């Protein structure tokens, strides 16, 4: 790993947001927001440049302080990480733009929740750190930074509902972190190293490794709100401020998914069995159906969107049973690996854009009406056509209708399911699409229906609606560069790989 080209970018990607966040703390309310917004744009610009670097030079590393692993901290910016960091930046900067106006309108006296900005920048730094870290402990620190910032953001509004939901979130986060740390401890105990690359090579199958795998997966599943640990997500995401909900649903939960993906493919290949992969897929399938069903039953927009997040995250988990190869199957012959990976990437991208857009639209509705009961959405196409369009487009992507990003994800997922012969996942995907269509069209139906009575509504600044619409369109536009994106991702060692399970005679390894 240390032979790869070095670059200061990985460190900057974590350091700059932190610096800007700290800088912001020195200002008073309005100044803080300005610093925050400017900081967001700066960080986004940095990400853009770093992304470009990676396309030119391939995977970049940065060795902090010059101390090499296994004791030092190595940050790795490979194409996969770059895509996630890029996603965070693009969605994040649009949400920042939205927040500037939204928060000010929401609480004009204090300049709109000034603590939002440093917290958001810390969160961003933590996410970047999570995507870049290459050793288990740095990952733990990143997870913590992300977790605490996220909870703090979630309780920002100060309402009792937000506080209760935030406490639940925090407890789940701590439980998840402790579980993760336990696994890290076990891995260190058995191998003496924390570096992901080295672990992948020296890890041997055994009780300790299996237990570590299970407990780390447990921790990460709690944090990704997988069934049956999903209960904290709907209240937390729905009672937070709309821009925060967007950040949480679109970006934060993707971080722990990324981690799950990395650790399973790069570290744990040796102790995974086919059954464990199936178990994860089952959790995902149940989440898809359960979450969509719950969304259908809600009567508040933010709750619908939050439950929808649980469901859509379930799709991500359904990738795992496809990645774990049955005994005897080699990665070379498994032509479903590519579609499975593509499905995962596109589900992450499409869901991030669509979900952020939906939460931002929900914020617009709340600002206009003062509440988010969906019965008041009647005739939305007349009094807020842009927002109705945004909801429609984002919803279509969630259902997975062509030619959206969500369609690409479901297409690839079904391809992977069929190619691998694991057809039993197809009904879950099928039911998920139908139920998603159910709640999306429930919203659209109301949007087209004539109004019952003329309710009062506040005018909403155009820029907010434009932000929501942009993100919704984004969920469609990500399909266009598909070829180049996949080619770019192939530069990452881990993309397109499968996890070969233990075979007889002790042959193991991940290619």
């Amino acid at each position, binding site marked *: 790993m240390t032979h790869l080209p070095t670059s200061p970018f990985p460190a900057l990607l974590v350091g700059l947001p932190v610096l800007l966040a700290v800088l912001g703390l020195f200002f008073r309310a309005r100044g803080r927001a300005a610093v925050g917004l400017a900081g967001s744009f700066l960080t986004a610009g940095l990400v853009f440049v770093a992304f470009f670097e990676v396309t030119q030079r391939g995977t970049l590393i940065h060795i902090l302080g010059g101390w090499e692993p296994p*004791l030092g901290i190595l940050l790795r910016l490979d194409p996969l990480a770059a895509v996630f960091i890029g996603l965070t930046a693009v969605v994040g900067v649009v949400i920042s733009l939205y927040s500037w106006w939204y928060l000010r309108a929401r609480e004009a006296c204090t300049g709109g929740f000034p603590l939002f900005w440093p917290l958001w920048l810390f969160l961003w730094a933590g996410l970047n750190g999570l995507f870049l870290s290459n050793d288990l402990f740095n990952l733990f620190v990143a997870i913590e930074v992300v977790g605490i910032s996220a909870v703090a953001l979630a309780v920002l509004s100060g309402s009792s509902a937000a506080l209760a939901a935030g406490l639940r979130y925090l407890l789940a986060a701590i439980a998840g972190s*402790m579980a993760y740390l336990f696994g890290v401890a076990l891995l260190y*105990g058995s191998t003496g190293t924390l570096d992901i690359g080295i672990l992948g090579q020296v890890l041997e199958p055994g009780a300790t490794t299996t237990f570590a795998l299970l407990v780390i997966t447990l921790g990460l599943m709690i944090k990704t709100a997988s069934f049956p640990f999903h209960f904290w997500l709907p209240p937390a995401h729905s009672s937070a401020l709309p821009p925060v909900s967007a950040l949480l649903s679109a970006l934060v939960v993707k971080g722990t998914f990324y981690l799950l993906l990395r650790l399973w493919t790069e570290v744990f290949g040796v102790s995974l069995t086919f059954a464990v992969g199936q178990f994860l897929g089952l959790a995902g399938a149940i989440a898809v159906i359960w979450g969509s069903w719950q969304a259908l039953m809600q009567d508040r927009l933010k709750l619908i969107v939050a439950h929808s997040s649980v469901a859509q995250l379930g799709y991500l988990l359904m990738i795992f049973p496809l990645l774990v190869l049955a005994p005897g199957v080699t990665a070379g012959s498994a032509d479903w690996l590519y579609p499975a990976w593509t499905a995962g990437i596109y589900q992450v991208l499409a869901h991030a854009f669509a979900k952020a857009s939906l939460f931002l639209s929900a914020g617009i509705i709340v600002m206009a009406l003062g509440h988010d009961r969906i019965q008041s959405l009647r005739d939305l196409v007349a009094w807020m056509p842009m927002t109705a369009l945004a909801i429609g487009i984002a919803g279509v992507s969630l259902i997975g209708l062509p030619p959206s990003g969500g369609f690409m994800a479901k297409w690839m997922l079904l391809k992977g399911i069929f190619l691998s012969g694991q057809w039993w996942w197809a009904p879950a995907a099928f039911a998920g699409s139908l139920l998603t269509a159910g709640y999306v069209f429930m919203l659209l139906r109301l949007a087209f229906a004539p109004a019952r009575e003329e309710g009062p509504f506040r005018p909403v600044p155009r820029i907010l609606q434009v932000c929501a619409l942009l993100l919704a369109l984004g969920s469609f536009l990500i399909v266009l560069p598909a070829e180049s994106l996949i080619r770019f991702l192939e530069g990452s060692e881990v993309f397109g790989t499968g996890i070969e399970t233990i075979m007889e005679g002790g042959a193991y390894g991940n290619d």
Partner: protein
Amino acid sequence: METYQIYSLTSAVLFVIGLAGVFASGHFIKKIIATNIMGGGVFLCLVSFSGRDALAFADPVPHALVITGIVVAVSSAAFALSLARRIKQLTGKESFSNDK
């Protein structure tokens, strides 16, 4: 059985007790204490590894990890406690009325 294996086992037990405790009760403080117990188990496990393989001196890496972990756990607990306190102030509730 070697020493550190006893420690590992104990830590596993503590961890499970803590995890169960988080889900078992709805009371805020009980849940927070449960997470601390989980943490305790994990830290015990981590620290026990610093004495493995009969090294001449204790391995400092687990020490560093545990210290970081304890700091994080304490801060999180403090955060959780302040949230619980605020909820009590606002609503008078001390537990989640309907769990999950």
